[in-house]
């Protein structure tokens, strides 16, 4: 009924975690295949020849790349259970805009908090916190970004929480103390089984992150 679903992924990938959460939310059975990053397998090159990145969702042999695109695919194919995007077009547009914000700000700045040095790193840390505060503003009094229901933006954002320990340790700053509302949202989201079972352990993420740092030649 679901067909053959394979998720080509890497344990610490926040983008892969998005898809793990979505598939769990929809109750889809799938085969998880781990890529041994930074080494990439021939299978990955075959499934994602353009970007050569994880995650790749493979449904009945057909690959879908780019996590937000795969998220929408999952939502459209398994539309009966736990819809992630709202049905109203304007609200859908808002959800897409905020998911893009997560990619452009949280991801990019988060990366800079460890890959940049000196003044650039300090600026990135500051902007990263500011981005989280903007998200806090968007959340407002709602339990989730999706409103009453856990939704698209929640799925897009929550995996970054598993990387906070790595960012904090490397960047020597504390995120939680500056964004209490954000922390409350992460705790609420972690109560969902789909999230707690899909998020990587922050310590293991940190170990992977150290390998990544070395690979990119950042000391």
């Amino acid at each position, binding site marked *: 009924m679901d067909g053959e679903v394979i998720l080509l992924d890497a344990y610490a990938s926040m983008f892969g975690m998005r898809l793990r959460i979505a598939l769990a939310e929809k109750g889809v059975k799938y085969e998880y295949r781990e890529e041994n990053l930074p080494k990439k397998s021939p299978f990955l090159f075959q499934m994602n020849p353009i970007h050569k990145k994880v995650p790749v969702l493979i449904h009945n042999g057909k690959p879908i790349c780019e996590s937000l695109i795969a998220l929408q*695919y999952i939502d459209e*194919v398994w539309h009966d259970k736990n819809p992630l995007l709202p049905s109203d*077009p304007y609200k859908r*547009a808002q959800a897409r805009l905020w998911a893009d914000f997560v990619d452009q700000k949280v991801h990019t700045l988060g990366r800079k908090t460890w890959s940049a040095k000196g003044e650039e790193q300090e600026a990135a840390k500051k902007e990263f916190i500011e981005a989280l505060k903007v998200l806090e503003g968007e959340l407002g009094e709602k339990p989730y970004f999706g409103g009453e229901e856990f939704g698209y933006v929640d799925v897009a954002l929550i995996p970054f929480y598993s990387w906070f320990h790595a960012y904090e340790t490397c960047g020597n700053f504390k995120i939680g103390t500056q964004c209490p509302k954000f922390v409350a949202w992460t705790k609420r989201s972690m109560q969902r089984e789909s999230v707690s079972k899909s998020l990587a352990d922050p310590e293991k993420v940190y170990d992977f992150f150290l390998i990544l740092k070395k690979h990119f030649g950042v000391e």
Partner: protein
Amino acid sequence: MEENQGVKLLGFWVSPYVLRVKWALKLKGIEYEYIEEDVFNKSPLLLKLNPVKGQVPVLVHDGKPIPESIVILEYIDEVWKHSPLLPQDPYERANSRFWAKFAAEKLQAYAWEALCSRGEDHERAIKASMEALEKMEKELNGKKFFGGDKIGFVDLVAGFISYQLPVYEEIVSMKILDSSKFPAITNWINNFLNHPLIKEELPPKHKMLAYFSNRRNVILVQNSSNK
């Protein structure tokens, strides 16, 4: 905000992001009020409607603003379901989204870099642009348009290739759109530019030449003073 305020589009005459939206509205036969913005001297209206980035395009439908061209295209396709831009099949939809993203984020960025750089950076950007075009050439695979027989989502997003890239090439005397290397893309460019709705809605070439020459000069000066 009141309902039934119709459709407004805030734009800038030369922006390829705005043009995508204009084309989409035209293909769907949607009437709208166009408001030209000076992006170098932003109006209070633009800053109010797009407080996060202050950029065009912004579509305003029944008083509700939506920024970001690709998000706007998805919105238009969902509200006005006739003449669909995206295919119906979820896998084909994902594929369209993938190639639209690729054209917008990779090819467009490399082409801009090729325009606004010199020396090694410039050569690298030309190479990257051609590699990206090669991938799009393969995806086109003999189809008339990326959308098949009709113009679709990817065609609108990648449309800048047809009219803007040749202008860049002329300004810096470079060759990216090699017809011997990219026969399918070359064919696609002709089909796209000759589409009755597209050819009515293109910025004047002489104005684009002047505008992008100027932008190139400004950015080159900025970059050399930043070094």
